[in-house]
């Protein structure tokens, strides 16, 4: 038993898991507010990361300026997607809505390859020191940054929903659209707002991943990995999404450890979350914290 490796991988899993949690959180945000299952969540990460990369590398904008510009861009981008593609689909069967987001992910994915090329690009270094020592473990600075940013985003989200007026409007809409409307909440604005916030949060997560691993189309994998996380946590629970993300991140790395040390199957790292997904769907489809209102058929 290689304890050092195990701890290293678990730390890794925690870092990746919180990122999954952040992406899952923004996925659930869209689902809760607008009842749209967004298969293009990963592409939002991708677009955000590429925009930030282009600003820093092509236009030589410093990071502290590039990040806010990216966030503003993604905010507008999210509103635009909702208005152009999703608004006409309101009231359509769920299959059509799912297909639109799938098609959207294809378009965005290909457009990014078209504009920025297929080769992965390294992100310009942001920190001067490569790694810090923590409790005898060498942890890369970017990992610490990633963890801090993720937690900050979760805290900001919690504040937004608990304290702010817009967050309250969003919760009301998620609870009952008609009642919300009769109380003077513009459901249209709430829909646009939820996409905008989701896109912005995803973009921040995308930039964080890009800083760690570089920018490439592989970033959109996060959009797929979000499904095991949200199903585990429960589709309509934000806290569940965060917890689900962390569990999936830890599980992935634990699977890699077991695989590398004992089983030697290879690739278990990538499929393990999907086995978990199938098992949860079979035994507890509403997840850990989801509302138990799924129609059993």
């Amino acid at each position, binding site marked *: 038993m290689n304890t050092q490796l195990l701890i290293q991988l678990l730390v890794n899993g925690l870092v990746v898991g919180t990122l999954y949690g952040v992406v899952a959180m923004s996925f659930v945000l869209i689902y809760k507010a607008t009842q749209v*299952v967004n298969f293009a969540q990963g592409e939002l990460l991708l677009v955000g990361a590429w925009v930030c990369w282009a600003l820093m590398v092509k236009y030589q904008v410093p990071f502290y300026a590039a990040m806010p510009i990216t966030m503003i861009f993604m905010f507008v981008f999210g509103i635009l997607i909702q208005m152009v*593609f999703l608004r*006409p*689909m309101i009231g*359509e*069967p*769920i*299959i*059509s809505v*799912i*297909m*639109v987001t*799938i*098609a*959207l*992910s*294809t*378009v965005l*994915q*290909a*457009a990014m*390859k*078209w504009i920025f090329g297929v080769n992965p690009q390294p992100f310009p270094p942001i920190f001067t020191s490569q790694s810090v020592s923590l409790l005898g473990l060498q942890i890369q600075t970017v990992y610490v940054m990633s963890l801090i940013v993720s937690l900050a985003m979760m805290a900001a989200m919690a504040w937004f929903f608990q304290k702010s007026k817009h967050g309250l409007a969003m919760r009301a809409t998620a609870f009952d659209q008609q009642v919300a409307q009769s109380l003077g909440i513009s459901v249209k604005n709430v829909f646009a707002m939820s996409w905008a916030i989701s896109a912005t949060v995803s973009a921040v997560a995308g930039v964080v991943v890009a800083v760690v691993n570089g920018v490439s189309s592989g970033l959109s994998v996060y959009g*797929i990995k979000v*499904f*095991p996380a949200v*199903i585990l946590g429960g589709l309509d629970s934000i806290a569940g999404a965060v917890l689900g993300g962390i569990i999936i991140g830890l599980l992935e790395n634990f699977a890699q450890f077991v695989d590398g040390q004992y089983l030697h*199957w*290879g*690739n278990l790292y*990538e*499929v393990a979350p*999907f*086995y978990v*997904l*199938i098992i949860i*769907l*079979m035994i507890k*489809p509403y997840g850990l914290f989801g509302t138990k209102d*799924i*129609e*059993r*058929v």
Partner: protein
Amino acid sequence: MANSMIPAGDFRTSYAADTTIFPTVTSRNFAIAGVLLTCAAPFLFNEYWLSLLIQIGIYGIAALGLNVLVGFTGQISIGHAAFFLFGAFSSAYLSTKIGIPAFFAIPLAGLVTAVVGLVFGLPAARLKGLYLAIATLAAQYILLDFFARAEWFSGGSVPAMAEPFSIFGYALQGDRQFFYVVLAYVVVCFLLVTNMMRSRDGRALVAVRDHYLSAEIMGINLTKYRTLSFGIAAFFAGIGGALYAHYQLVVSYEGFGIERSILFLAMVIIGGLGSVMGTLMGTAFVVLLPEAMEWITAILAGGPIDHALGLKTNITFLREIAIGTIIIVFLVFEPDGLAHRWHQIKAYWKLYPFSH
């Protein structure tokens, strides 16, 4: 005359008239003439166009299965490419490792794939809508991982070989001869599905789609029909995949990721959900779209648009963008697909000049 046209209203007076495959004598004659005309294709087209026709046939059969699942039963699957590939690998395995002639291996591969489809369809018995979409997404990844891992079955990273198709000891050579095999399968499969849709089982599937609670009250076993439609979808995917294996003679799991599954969904949506002939139209559309794009690129080559967009080097991405855009456009503006458009054109000419 009386039999060759449908009157303006829908006057079906007998049960037999309601369940006939071809509504009029003319439509039956047109279908037969169409098949006969397609028989002449190997003499009319060159190798390249013939290979496109074969592709339309092969993918059309697989898309037909998906249409039974999505269009008729109202379930969704984002893992159809994995089933297609499973059929290809199992036919290759049956024909080379076990030595069953390709003639029998193709339907057998369809059956084996149907069994796998039933297994993955079991969640469908309990889940619906987006949960099912996510479950099939997982199936896609799990199956693809299985192909990469199971060297005894799929050869792992080495592509699997398939025996060429032979009938009574006579091995078919080249596209021209293989074309007739595909054509035969297309005719049989499309007739099978059309026939199934007018049987009790077919109507049950549609009832499950339209209102599952009413369907259940009318005595339709939901679990059975939901799972069954998965089996049917996988069966046709397996047949298509097996034909693909004996056409290409090598099968590799490269290029059968989620993008290919989306392409299958695109075929069904563009063609028309719940339309048998529409499936073929949609498949032709999706298969010919890259060709049309190549053609446009060749025309624009050297022009200002070419310089601005870099068409030649980026054709693959442009193709993906086009596919995605077309899916969205169809979903927003023409949710019933090409089949619906086709009916409107026909109705326009039939009722001309008194369209209302």
